[in-house]
């Protein structure tokens, strides 16, 4: 358990780094996709961590996802075992472009205890209308198919952290 926590902590740090440095993110993803080559070229600490990191990476990919359609929403949001943040956003919305990455970061910090679903309101208008979205970005926190919390507009990183913490009951 202690090692798992340690790995998670290191993972959180490396995610932070990769967000800041696109080049680092690229090398990270390439190291996970072609592990054999990365093993030989990576520095010692990295090769030591890479198997578990790639495992977490794949689970991270599931944790933040774009909703495909209503059925997908039902399956991965309403029926989700994890609490889910639903980010209703639009291509034409400037603030959404700022909030989206911040939200992903806040979710990543929770190390798999919360998922994030992204809904483009122009592609999935019915969903947005059904969930009462009037302006974007609108973020809805759901647990067991119920709406627990909601906010509209931009929030800073600390506010997002506390919003997410509240959802997972911390």
């Amino acid at each position, binding site marked *: 358990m202690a090692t798992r926590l340690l790995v998670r902590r290191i993972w959180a740090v490396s995610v932070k780094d990769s967000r800041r440095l696109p080049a680092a993110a690229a090398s990270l993803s390439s190291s996970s996709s072609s592990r054999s080559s990365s093993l030989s070229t990576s520095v010692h600490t990295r090769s030591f961590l890479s198997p578990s990191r790639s495992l977490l990476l794949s689970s991270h990919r599931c944790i933040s996802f774009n909703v495909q359609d209503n059925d997908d929403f039902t399956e991965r949001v309403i029926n989700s075992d994890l609490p889910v943040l639903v980010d209703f956003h*639009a*291509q*034409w*919305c*400037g603030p959404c472009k700022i909030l989206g990455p911040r939200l992903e970061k806040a979710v990543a910090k929770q190390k798999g205890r919360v998922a994030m679903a992204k809904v483009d*309101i*122009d592609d999935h*208008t019915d969903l947005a*209308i059904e969930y009462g*979205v*009037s302006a*974007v970005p609108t973020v809805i926190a759901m647990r067991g198919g119920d709406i627990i919390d909601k906010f509209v507009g931009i929030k800073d990183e600390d506010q997002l952290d506390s919003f997410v913490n509240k959802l997972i009951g911390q």
Partner: protein
Amino acid sequence: MPPVENDNAQIKARLQEFIDSNLVVIFSKSYCPYCKKVKELFKELNVACEAMELDLIENGSSYQDVLMEMTGQKTVPNVFVNKTHVGGCDKTIQAHKDGYLQQLLGAESTAYDYDLIVIGGGSGGLACSKEAAALGKKVMVLDYVVPTPLGTSWGLGGTCVNVGCIPKKLMHQTAMLHTALEDARKFGWEFSEAVNHNWETMKSAVNNYIGSLNWGYRVALRDKNVTYMNSYAEFVEPHKIKATTKRGKEMFHTAAKFVLATGERPRYLGIPGDKEYCITSDDLFYLSYCPGKTLVIGASYVALECGGFLAGLGLDVTIMVRSILLRGFDQDMANRAGDHMETYGIKFIRKFVPIKIEQLEAGTPGRLKVTAKSTETDEIIEGEYNTVLIAVGRDACTGNIGLDKAGVFVNPKNGKIPVNDEEQTNIPHIYAIGDILEGKWELTPVAIQAGRLLARRLFAGSSEKCDYVNVPTTVFTPLEYGSCGLSEEKAIELYGEENLEIFHSLFWPLEYTIPNRDNNRCYAKIICNKLDNERVIGFHYLGPNAGEVTQGFGVAMKCGATKQQLDSTIGIHPTCAEIFTTMEVTKRSGGDIKQTGC
């Protein structure tokens, strides 16, 4: 008190008409629980009923008095079924129990899915549907954008929001900023020589704004409880439409009443290469690349506005004109706006029509060869352009919505729908508003007004009609042209030249003096009816901020402003609009109209 009797007679006629034209009529008050109970009864029976809320309409108490006169019943609800007076809540429920109600409703009684179906989610359709829903009606709106031949498509809101007023004015603003940048140096602003425009940035910004408006409309429909379908609607029966989604899924819906608000789409030329290689205004606002050297075909306001702002972005623009500029507008003003465009760097090819468009090279933009023929001689000319924009008029979208199945008369010559002064077609339960109307203004605010008032007449017992007279409007050419009322031509035709006094003046906006541009280009003109106290019947303004200037004078004309009242108004100095308070030179005098000093 004779006037009251007169009013009562009118009210009685309105009430009778309302009773006669609806299967079930409930005179009600919005807060009355018994009225609610009766409405619920009819809802259970699945019978559409029309309620007139006497506490929400003007003169509601007079209506109640007349009802007392007609039925001996003063209280509400006051229910009529099939033109027969039934009574209040208890009597109606009793009638239901003993079968009298069913008997009155008749075997053929029809229950519709909706009180109102609006076909077309543009300015008019949305306004009408929201108003009807706010009056408690069950309303559906269907909107569907058929993509252009080049595949351009857009969201909810109709022409104005997506491919008209909104993107047009934002791009006009883009062009005006270019002029402002040039002027700025004269006012002492210093910045590096190179000033470039990025089409992609402008296009994305404009499209993003439109995206937010589309969403706003969708939310407004939800909030007002209007059912919205992104489907193509066509009549299959007089009270039934087929709605087809993008994926081809079909559904059928019925309604007691319909409003047609399908709008218009750009007309093509019907010459080789037009749909394959040319764009229209429907494509221009979503074009992913800068159009480059552009030929605009047509002299409609769409043509002049698009040509104007493209030139303002610094593009090489040519406009090909078959005959006159801005048909239907005051020709003196139209030509002045056109002359200014020439000084602005736009080339005009007059009295030519294109006969063939060929692609020399594909690309973004590519290269096109245009062959055109003189309208007067056999002369043929050729030209090479990156983009050809067709703006030769618009066609009403009335051809493929099954109007024949509903029996609605459409003018076969232009596809327009004639309506009476209450926007009613030849089929009593089908109405039409907006650009598809014959002989009416094609303007968003007119459609909105008509739609809203129509809903109030249909569902709230209102009698107010849309006033299509003295509608102010503005053409956003590089030098903007605002007008209200009659053109000089139309005024002469209606009143005779001898009965008109036309005052006019050139003026030079103060902000143009330091850059020293467009001197003696801006022009103001008012047409007054000498037979009617020199009442202003035509207002024309060519200059900056024409929309802002014209709007207020539109109000004045609605109030019946006369020349004397304009003269006694104090101007605001220094502005452009103040010119209208000091107009002295009449056109017939031939006096000097050049402006000098304060």
